[in-house]
């Protein structure tokens, strides 16, 4: 009896030790993957603190002799107009996002709460198809039309795009509004509420999480977009993405890599901040986009 019990005890001890080892190996794997994925970001930060000659040395130097914090001061030098274009980018992103959220919410509301309208299902089919159908295929022909209307070089295209809403965001709002109880609507209608005030006073104020998701995703999209402002806007009213890509030059006209990299860090920083503050909303949006077609 005693022999069996002790054998069992040593067996569980061995199992526990094996489990511990497994866990240790697993953490090692996680750390390894994390290192591989974060090395580029660390190298970006290190390079942003180098002198340009240090970056251009061969063989490469891994660390700056003295961290050049003044790179970050230089990024804001008035001659590069960084702050001016940052302001323009924020203005453009906020304008577009606000319009897009409102328009998408309104359409999403209609698609969710008017299932009795015959064409509703078919029209919503178009919305879903538009989520999948690529944007880049319309952007170039659109550009030709906008340039015919002399709207290139202005922010008006963004206003129109915002007003039209976005299929994915319509989808997002529709899914959310579907879950509202029918009684809420009926009671409001009996009280003489118009459909618009049902939307405006009851549905919208209760949709804060989707509004946040939608606004953040739109804002991030405009901030990160390089292609559209590059072909639509002039160099004096373009967004940061286009600016930082080729503004940091020395008097001879050559691009200064370390300064561009410092500018890149400043350009990325708001996105990282928004991610940490709105992580919950952003990830929810990503997940929805992944499951939209189902």
């Amino acid at each position, binding site marked *: 009896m005693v022999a069996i019990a002790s054998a069992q005890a040593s067996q569980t001890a061995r199992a526990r030790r094996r489990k511990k080892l497994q866990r240790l190996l697993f953490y090692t794997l996680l750390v390894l993957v994390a290192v591989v994925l974060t090395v580029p970001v660390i190298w970006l930060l290190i390079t942003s603190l180098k002198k340009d000659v240090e970056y251009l040395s061969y*063989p490469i130097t891994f660390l700056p002799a003295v961290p050049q914090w003044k790179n970050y001061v230089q990024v804001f030098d008035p001659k590069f107009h960084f702050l001016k274009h940052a302001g323009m980018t924020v203005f453009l992103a906020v304008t577009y996002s606000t319009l897009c959220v409102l328009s998408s919410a309104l359409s999403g509301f209609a698609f969710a709460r008017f299932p009795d309208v015959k064409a509703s299902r078919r029209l919503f089919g178009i919305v879903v198809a*538009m989520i999948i159908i690529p944007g880049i295929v319309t952007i170039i022909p659109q550009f030709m039309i906008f340039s015919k209307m002399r709207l290139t070089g202005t922010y008006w295209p963004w206003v129109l795009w915002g007003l*039209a*809403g976005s299929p994915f965001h319509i989808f997002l709002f529709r899914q959310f509004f579907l879950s509202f109880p029918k009684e809420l609507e009926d009671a409001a209608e009996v009280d003489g509420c118009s459909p618009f005030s049902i939307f405006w006073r009851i549905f919208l104020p209760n949709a804060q999480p989707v509004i946040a998701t939608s606004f953040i995703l739109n804002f991030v999209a405009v901030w990160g977009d390089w292609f559209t402002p590059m072909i639509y806007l002039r160099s004096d009213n373009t967004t940061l993405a286009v600016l930082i890509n080729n503004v940091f030059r020395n008097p001879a006209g050559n691009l200064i890599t370390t300064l561009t990299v410092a500018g890149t860090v400043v350009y990325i920083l708001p996105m990282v901040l928004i991610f940490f503050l709105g992580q919950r909303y952003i990830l929810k949006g990503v997940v929805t986009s992944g499951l939209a077609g189902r």
Partner: protein
Amino acid sequence: MSLAGPRPERTRATARSRRRQRTFYTFISPWLLGFVLLTLLPLIAGLLISLTNYDGLNPRSMHLVGLDNYVTAFKDPLVRHASGRTMVWVLLNLPLWIIVSFFLAILVNQKIKGIGIFRTLFYIPSVIPAVGLVWTWKILLEQNYGLLNGFLSLFRPGTAIGWLSDQAIYGVTSIALWSGLGAGMIIFLAGLQGLPDELIEAARIDGASSFQVFWKITLPLMTPVLFFQIVLGLISAFQMFVIPWLATTSGSVPAPPRGVYLYMVNIYRQIFGVGRFGYGMAILWLLIVVIMALTLLVFRTQRYWVYSEVEE
């Protein structure tokens, strides 16, 4: 029963439904108008322009050329080259992205202490916008001053591989992969977390190994997510443009190297580089048709390998 009985009832009902219909159309009108003017119209305009020799500057000298642009496209060696490179790009990137992001999702789906930190860390690359992304990688992959060649030189002095020039397909693939993993991981993770725990528990009690659980239960149940990832990945891989363009061009290099001269890159070059708007629109339409056909094809394969709960 009076004949007049049901009538007012019905008129009231139809009046109400007509009113609701009007409200519905009013509410969706911004989107509907936008769809017609900003999507449908440009697509049709693009189709019409593809039948002309429009150069983007002189509408006066524009005239119809019929299907000439399409005929040219099929004979154009540049189109053939770009199509080939796009196929290579898709075949290299799509499987890599799917497999690695699925693997990451499985890693961060373990219920252990501190896993939230790793989830966040793994997602961080996806937060970086295209221009930032490309600069982050330019300084890693630069031929003479980049970290990667510098690191390789420690073992083999003088390593100077052109990760963004003659080997650009690998350099640009790393960039695109690194930036896409976060979103892929999160979507797979959501799928994994939606799997029924009981099934996996039951299999474990019956003595199934982790390997068996993965192949026999997890993977089949994940096929709907996998399917959708493939569809979306396929569509976006065919349109890849911004990353290869930004990563490989500069003031002195006006066009990407041959390795990453992808289909969209060629379209952009034809339209904005050489001003062949009509021709560019024609090859753009060919791309749209190919993407739609492939998407339909993938949808057709769905019933052979995608698990669905509802038996049809």
